[in-house]
């Protein structure tokens, strides 16, 4: 399918001014008439479209409009969430205290072993450091945390202020590495580097590629070893996946980065296959590992019965081992046997309900199939950091007539919830309370969710959580 990137439109839209009203309307008339009445949405017509009408996708991947209430984050945040789940590493934030204070335990990534990653480390830059430079302080801090914790590695993140004062964190990291003998890895993640936090994901992947992966040899070579890339073990998702592959005879060497250790990531280059879960943050890493180490990769998805089944089969087929293929089919048969019965009760209540998704780009299309299995329909899907290929993916997955929206601000989200009245919104914590205040049930599918949603058991959990959110009697009272 040919992407309609609409370069003309993107050009006119790349400015920062929200007054660019002369945009071609791509939303069907009926919907547009509805939305036109909403002052806030006028200037953003090109950032929304309806699937199925033509090949169009929303204008996207452009600067945020200053002064709106963006749901976006910064580049540092993007880098942090990718690397944080490495459990035996110190994540040292070189910047003012707030950058570390607001993010040090932001992600509900679980660990079977080390808890070091759950601590917040910062150089806490002060005014004098801004004037005289923070390199000395950084160096001392690295030596200090190394002495206190002997971590597997120390990741050093640069923040906005470091970019401005020009500290050479690479040089400091090198020097500190020589002094400590511990891996000290610079992550050049100045917050303002891009409007899209995906740039931070890429920087994090680069840090692993440049300084970590390929620097150690695995303890054992397994003929069927794989890495699960872009799986961060939020709420223990990973633990719903690993046992399935192990039953097939596949050895999961590590996830990158959920519940991982520095050693495991460092020796990930010997695995025979990479499977990629969060394709937004980690396709790049998989592609680079293929280039550098010749490791092929498969895109997988563990949300929903069908997608999980497909993802298991894909790996078995990749290895082509008859025994494994047989085992896989048996596994699927036994796992799925009671599953559909278990969800049927939820399905009865949920069938026909409508869903809006506003989350990370990967989830904006990867959840569609799972909702289909609950007989629920996606009527709106969007993300704050989408690139053209992400919106193309959404288009391929959703039904005709679905609203696809890029970078909606909080006000626009409230308006869209009002217009579309979905039965549930899937998003993160910032949108959660907007959604509830608007009378729309909500399911958290982000960093601080507390229930694992991956794999077969995860899907039961997911169905239960969605069912609970929609059916809770509070919604019968809220409009009184």
């Amino acid at each position: 399918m040919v992407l309609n990137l609409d370069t003309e439109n993107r050009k006119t839209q790349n400015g920062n001014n929200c007054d660019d009203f002369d945009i071609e309307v791509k939303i069907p008339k009926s919907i547009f008439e509805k939305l036109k009445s909403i002052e806030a949405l006028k200037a953003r017509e090109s950032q929304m479209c309806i699937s199925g009408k033509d090949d169009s996708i929303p204008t996207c991947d452009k600067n945020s409009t200053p002064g709106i209430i963006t749901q976006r984050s910064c580049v540092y945040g993007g880098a942090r969430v990718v690397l944080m789940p490495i459990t035996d590493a110190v994540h040292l934030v070189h910047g003012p205290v707030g950058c570390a204070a607001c993010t040090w335990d932001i992600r509900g990534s679980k660990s079977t072993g080390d808890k070091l990653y759950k601590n917040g480390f910062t150089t806490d830059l002060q005014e004098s450091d801004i004037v005289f430079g923070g390199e000395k302080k950084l160096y001392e801090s690295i030596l200090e945390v190394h002495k206190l914790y002997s971590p597997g590695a120390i990741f050093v993140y640069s923040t906005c202020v470091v970019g401005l004062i020009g500290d050479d964190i690479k040089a400091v990291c090198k020097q500190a590495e020589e002094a400590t003998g511990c891996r000290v890895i610079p992550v050049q993640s100045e917050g303002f580097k891009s409007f899209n936090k995906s740039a931070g994901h890429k920087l994090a992947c680069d840090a692993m590629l440049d300084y970590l992966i390929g620097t150690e040899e695995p303890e054992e070579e397994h003929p069927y070893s794989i890495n699960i890339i872009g799986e961060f073990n939020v709420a223990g998702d990973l633990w719903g996946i690993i046992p399935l592959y192990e039953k097939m005879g596949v050895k999961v060497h590590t996830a990158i980065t959920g519940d991982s250790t520095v050693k495991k990531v460092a020796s990930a280059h010997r695995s025979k296959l990479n499977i990629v879960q969060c394709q937004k943050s980690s396709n790049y890493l998989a592609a680079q590992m293929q280039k550098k180490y010749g490791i092929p990769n498969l895109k997988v998805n563990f949300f929903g019965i069908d997608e999980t089944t497909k993802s298991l089969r894909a790996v078995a087929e990749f290895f082509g081992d008859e025994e494994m293929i047989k085992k896989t089919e048996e596994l699927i048969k036994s796992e799925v046997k009671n599953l559909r019965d278990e969800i049927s009760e939820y399905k009865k209540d949920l069938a026909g309900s409508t869903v809006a998704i506003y989350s990370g780009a990967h989830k904006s299309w990867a959840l569609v199939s799972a909702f289909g299995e609950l007989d629920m329909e996606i009527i709106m899907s969007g993300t704050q950091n989408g690139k053209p290929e992400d919106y193309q993916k959404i288009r391929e997955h959703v039904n005709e007539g679905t609203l696809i929206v890029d970078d909606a601000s909080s006000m626009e989200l409230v308006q869209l919830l009002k217009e579309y009245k979905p039965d549930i919104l899937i998003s993160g914590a910032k949108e959660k309370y907007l959604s509830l205040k608007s009378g729309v049930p909500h399911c958290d599918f982000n960093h601080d969710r507390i229930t694992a949603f991956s794999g077969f058991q995860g899907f039961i959990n997911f169905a239960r959580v969605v069912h609970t959110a929609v059916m809770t009697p509070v919604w019968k009272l809220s409009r009184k």
Partner: protein
Amino acid sequence: MSELNVIKKERTSVINPLVTCQPLGAMYAVMGIYRGMPLVHGSQGCSTFVRYGFSRHYREPADIAVTSLHEDAAVFGGRKNLISGLGNLAQRFKPDVMGVVTTCSSEIIGDDVGGFIKTAKQEIIKKMGEEAASKIKIVQINTPSFVEHQYKGYDNAIKAIVDTLAEPKDEENGKLNIVPGIVNPGDIREVKHMLSLMGVEGILLTDTSDPFDSPLRPSVAEKTPYYQKGGTTVAEIQDCANSLGTISLANYASSAPASLEKKYNMPSKVSEAPIGIKNTDSFIRTVKKFTGNDVTEEILDERGIVIDAMADVASRYLFGRTVAIYGDPSITVGMARFITELGMIPKVVCTGAKNDYFIDDLKKVAKESDEDIDALSGQDLRALDVYLKENPVDLLIGHSDGRLMAKDLGIPLYRVGYPVYDRVGYQRRPIIGYNGALNLVDGITNTIIDKYYEPQDWKLQQ
């Protein structure tokens, strides 16, 4: 002899911070204004992470705008972003007040924020017309992130708000200004409750109680633009120049009271948070002094009910038990004093902020209670962790960031402060005033019973 032993920081780095940076305090302050909208002049993360934090703690939406500085702004300055940001925010949200909150990046770039605001005002007049534009006030709040902490940011913001908006008149309004500090909706409601029992009208500078604890009414939320309920109105803030006096309930928030005192010759009093009996008594006395209104029977009864509750449990469960307190510099000191009133011993009090008030106030607590207290000022959670490993206590009082430490140490944690994200209702229940003290007595005692008494043995719990 009792004494305060101040333990010096031994590290360069901060490990598990107990403070965050200035902008958070400023955003909090602006959100307490009716139709007040913070506009953060910085990277997207600067607003996003704070919004996330507020949402987690208050379980409410937190609308905060940002100028989205990117690399070009770092090179060419943030002029364009700030001016168009103010214009867009004004047009879309029609706020009563836009609070421009600077960050580390905009401070370092050296943006002429004041000049940009002037230009933005002209732009807004052009776009919206003189009348509509005149209804939108812009307050410039300088909050460099590499100086001090969120409490300083809060102080800066309240002062900027008052300095920009206050309008003196010839007549006094008979009201009392209150600067509540960074507290919970329940605390602010308790302050209003106490004032109303004394027949005093207050001007809260600012009032975050309703904005951070708003009713769920979808029909209201659907209105555009949607603002959470409540907040101090611009008219009220303007009127604060004509009040009887200003009381700050946080020792770090002294700039606005000082400014009002200087400009309008108005008395002011700054103290630690009115937590516990003595501190609340002192607050009530100050109100009486400033207004001349009498302490009513209702207030005496509320006080009596707390004393009754303390008598019921203090000696039976609490006396002699050791406590570690951490968090906000003002609340921790208030809490330390109340702990001594309960007969418990505040072994160590830790704050991430570094300020002299904290040490001075704690010295007083040590002296009054005749207890030795260790103070960790400008420290972090790891420092407290290391201390507690060597000097274990019976109870921890602090916010949720200490939950893992508490679990590792096997010490029960009674949650107080910001942020509390792993329990519900803390933002609604006051810790300030006599009703706050009552909540604390109940909560602390139940925590002690849970940990140290056999749950099955009802006799022990009598």
